[in-house]
């Protein structure tokens, strides 16, 4: 392993286990960011639409928050696969009112509890363009919003071809995610356990 090579994620594999630690409750820390995950995140899905491992998504979001001195909680929502609803639910139980909502295929949004559900702070609608680096920046911005700072929005990439190229796959992934919705199950707080398999 050398310093100038590609990120370790590309070589050694990390796996993600979301260990349930109880019902998702309202947080009290004023600087905390809630990462709200969709029903299929981590299990049964393990990677985004462009094969970024879910372990890496969570690891980079948490790293971004940690680098900026913030704290984070991770929750998993089962009742809906609607990103806005997932993120807004997270924001409402976040101590700072800031949440990051992530779908299994990678689509991400930064939300705040006082916003209307379909509004947002920053939206990253094109999942195929989100890589580890972007997730790091999203985490860093979430932590800064939680601390009352005004970060520069993460530069959103745009690819005209993303829609025609990925739409079919995205639709299939959404259907699969939809199948994982469990209306009888409340959101739970989870502890992300990232293990490295060398």
């Amino acid at each position, binding site marked *: *392993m*050398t*310093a*100038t*090579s*590609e*990120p*370790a*994620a590309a070589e050694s594999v990390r796996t993600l286990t979301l260990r349930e630690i109880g019902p998702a409750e309202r947080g009290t820390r004023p600087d905390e960011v809630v990462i709200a995950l969709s029903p299929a995140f981590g299990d049964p899905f393990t990677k985004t639409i462009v094969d970024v491992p879910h372990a890496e998504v969570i690891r980079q979001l948490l*790293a971004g928050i*940690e*680098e*900026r*001195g913030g704290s984070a909680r991770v929750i998993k929502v089962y009742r809906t696969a609607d990103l806005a609803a997932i993120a807004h639910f997270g924001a409402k139980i976040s101590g700072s*009112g800031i949440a990051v909502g992530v779908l299994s295929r990678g689509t991400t949004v930064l939300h*705040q509890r*006082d*916003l*209307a559900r379909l*509004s*947002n*702070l920053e939206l990253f609608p094109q999942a195929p363009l989100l890589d580890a680096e972007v997730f*790091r920046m999203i985490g*860093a911005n979430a932590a*800064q*919003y939680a601390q*009352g*700072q*005004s*970060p*520069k929005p993460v530069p959103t990439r745009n690819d005209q071809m993303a829609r025609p190229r990925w739409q079919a796959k995205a639709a299939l992934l959404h259907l699969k995610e939809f199948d994982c919705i469990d209306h009888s199950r409340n959101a739970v707080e989870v502890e992300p356990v990232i293990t*490295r398999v060398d």
Partner: protein
Amino acid sequence: MDLVIGVDIGNSTTEACIAEVGDGQETERSGARPSRQVHRLASSLTATTGVKGTPANTAGAATAVRRALSAAGRPADALATVLLNEATPVISGLAMETITETIITESTMIGHNPDTPGGEGLGVGTTVSLEEVGDVEAGTPVVVVVGGGADFDDVAHLLNRAFERGVDVVAAVMHGDDAVLVVNRLQRRIPVVDEVAAVDRVPLGMLAAVEVAPPGRTIRTLSDSYGLASTFDLDAEQTRQVSPVARALSGNRSAVVVRTPAGDVTDRRIPVGTLTLSGSGRSLDVGVDGGADAIMEAIGRVAPLTDVHGEAGTHVGGMLANVRDTMTDVTGQPASEIRIRDVLAVDTLVPATVRGGLAGEVSKENAVALAAMVRTSRSRMQAVAEALSDELGCETIIGGVEGEVAVRGALTTPGSAVPIAIIDMGGGSTDAALLDRDGAVSAVHVAGAGELVTKLIDSELGLEDREAAESVKRHPLAKVESFFHVRHEDGTVQFFTEPLPPHVFAKVVTVTPEGLAAVPVRGALEEVRRVRREAKRRVFVVNALRALAQVAPQGSLRLLGSVVLLGGSALDFEIPGMVADALAPYGVVCGIGNVHGTEGPRGAVAAGLVDAHAGTAAGPASQGIERQAAS
């Protein structure tokens, strides 16, 4: 009853004041009564078209007249007379020259301020790359240089292994934004500076020092000449050489200094040409890189200024030539006959990227902003008057010297009295006029006003957005603290019942009548406020004092009775207060003009034109002024 309209064509706005002037003119002319009754109906405001005092003004003037007519609810054919001011073209120009630059040679120093450096303290050791840290002998103090693409988990793992082998890793310098992450995973807390974009250019095998201060503090050792001397064991001569490094690093939360054989940081003055000032029978050369004080002092020595030339190929020279060319185009006078009558130089700071920097360091470099003004007596108002007559189908009279009419308008401010001075703070120039007890009016125009303030705000905050700078200039600031409340710049909190739009969340904003507008800066609200107030002070306060000193009896501000502030900038939320504060020590009554007790600081000239028309029909102007003063 005649329907009369006074139109004042200014540098940036054209103002009109419509009034009914009572009774038949014939009996008035005979002198049966001292003046006619003036019944003001309405006023209007529009942007000036073209350069003031040129035929292009006709369109704007016609618009102002029509707006005033419709505001007064009168048909266009009822209009008897249009009164125009004797507007003379004033052209002003702005230029900025950066006069210092910081250059780092041999990559001796990293002085940028990453948001989140890791650890704290000072570490001194030999630079070694992360790949080679495994080969370092135990006990050697090293500063590890981490290249791009390294994952924080792996870096922490490798450094911990080095610790276990007994290698004395004292600090690290990284490419990515990973410092806190790495430090959190280390067995020992060491200072780590991150976000160094050109980390591959850090010289390896050299003695280096890394310092990180606790949050909210600044570094103490590397920003001090003797601190550097102790760290690198320097003698007196070497200490003298590194003192620019220390200076360049002061105020930072983190820094890296590498000791290389010939490395240096220089703070160089850029030669940006000279200004040739002529006046009182002599001419004087002054270097622009001498700064604003030197330039203003030289202008004082040749006062009254008759002309200024700049060196060709410099921004200032180009600006002065441009001002001359514009005036030539406008008046048809040859450029050789056009004289620059006033220059205002202001020191400013502009953020600039440091040459030779490894992390995109930005240093605040000194710059000089110059405003110049040229004026001509050759007015082309006759052409405007003729065009306006044709368009509106009524009589058009050019009447009244600007300063005199403005004073007459200002005197209608309740509580004002002769002797009276006015300061008209506009966009391109600041004008002052004085009416003394004998009825004599003296007036001056000095360069520098609202436009220069906007430019200073724009460059000092590094906005590169004129609209945003204009908004910062015009409106108070606030910080959006949640979707339902903002904290204003004076500390008061305002709550909202409807959530604020997401794009202003957590931002520094300007509070405009249209709502909140985000200011694209990363700095704190206090910093933006300081820049704004400082820019206004250096232009408006300095110019108000400068202009008043030129019209005041014997140049003494104490002999001025009262000062009335006019013009668009007198509507500003803080400029009048700043000017009044500056004039307070001279025992001067200073306040915002309120023409006719209702119109505020705008429209003084337009109202003055109508009053002069009604008054001069009966007697000389000075009588009219005294009458106004007494009323």
